[in-house]
């Protein structure tokens, strides 16, 4: 399993359309991809839209990304990238 720490940087936070973008990206990988809020215990499956929405992650929220599976390296990289790029909103 790979882990990494990420931060929501886009001004609107992980809003609905960004969440949908993330879910679509995550669904393309075979690995299990999880997002865990660092400040509380909420864990979300990155392939489920309702789950990602329950994170209610606004700008500045810190998350832990956990990826496990045969394509974990690529998956981790892709998800990190989409967060760093602020979902192409910045």
């Amino acid at each position: 399993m790979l882990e990494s720490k990420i931060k929501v940087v886009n001004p609107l936070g992980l809003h609905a359309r960004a969440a949908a973008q993330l879910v679509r990206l995550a669904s393309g990988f075979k690995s299990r991809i999880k997002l865990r809020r660092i400040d509380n215990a909420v864990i979300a499956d990155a392939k489920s839209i309702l789950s990602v929405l329950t994170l209610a992650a606004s700008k500045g929220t810190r998350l832990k990304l956990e990826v496990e599976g045969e394509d974990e390296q690529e998956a981790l990289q892709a998800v990190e990238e989409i967060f760093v790029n602020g979902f192409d909103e910045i």
Partner: protein
Amino acid sequence: MPSSKENESPKISVADFVEKSFAKLGIEVLAGKKGLHKKQIASKRIQKFGLALAGFTHYINEGRIQIVGQSEISYLSQLESAKRIEAINNLDLEKICCILITKKLVPPEELLNIADERNLPILRTAQVSSNAISYISSFLLETLAPQITLHGVLIGMYELGVLLLGESGIGKSECALDLIARGHRLVADDAVLIKKLGENLEGFSPELTRGHLEIRGLGIINVRDLFGVSAVASCKKIELCIEFQKWQDVLEVERLGLDRQEKEIFGVKITKYILPVSAGRNLSTLVETAVRVHLLKVAGFDAAQKLIAKHSAIVGGQ
């Protein structure tokens, strides 16, 4: 993409018109029988000769039924024979598809002779002009409506016409059978005839296949015989389109339900949902739910929007 045959401007032969409107107009053919099959009615508007008989023939439009009533007959009958022939020959007879005489009036001999020579059908009805015109207008509006045949299934669900599209073998007919078993009504399977009437799309089944469904493994079945008369419907206004796609072919699966997709037929836009198909997804339940979602949205309730508004308030408010 579904295969389609589009026919923007249908026509009807004069012979067809005479036959199909016989019950209402009781048309008899007085002259020009040879032109019955050759001459085509191409416009849903009718015309009256009026001033054209007096030589002002610029406005005679091709493909329209020309109605001849009392005033035209009276005008012709007060002319001398030679003038009468001149007036009739002046009419640009090639452009005219047929002449309908109303009120069982007796046309001058000259008109019948010329019509026989030129193979121009002269028809007659006992109806008065105003009645004949209103009937013919609505008859032609329907008959000459732009129409298209799409490969798909049309089902009547909760008073909506729901068009199911998708490539052959994806399970449209099987889904239709499932929906029929749940009390919905089959309009057309495999070939759906769609006509644009006014701003609406009406869907029908071609006469031959009406009430039939082809199920792989069973062959052609008669839905009316098997499920009863309430399992079929003759036509439905199409208000929703559901397209089945193989899971791997779907480029972007809708996850939020915020964006509305549309299908356009003859410039009329209807809501479209794309449902990915794979083993374990119960299509008929999905279709039924899609229709319910649509009905709820039309009534002003949008679950996705509501939840996301709530979510934005939380995310944006921190």
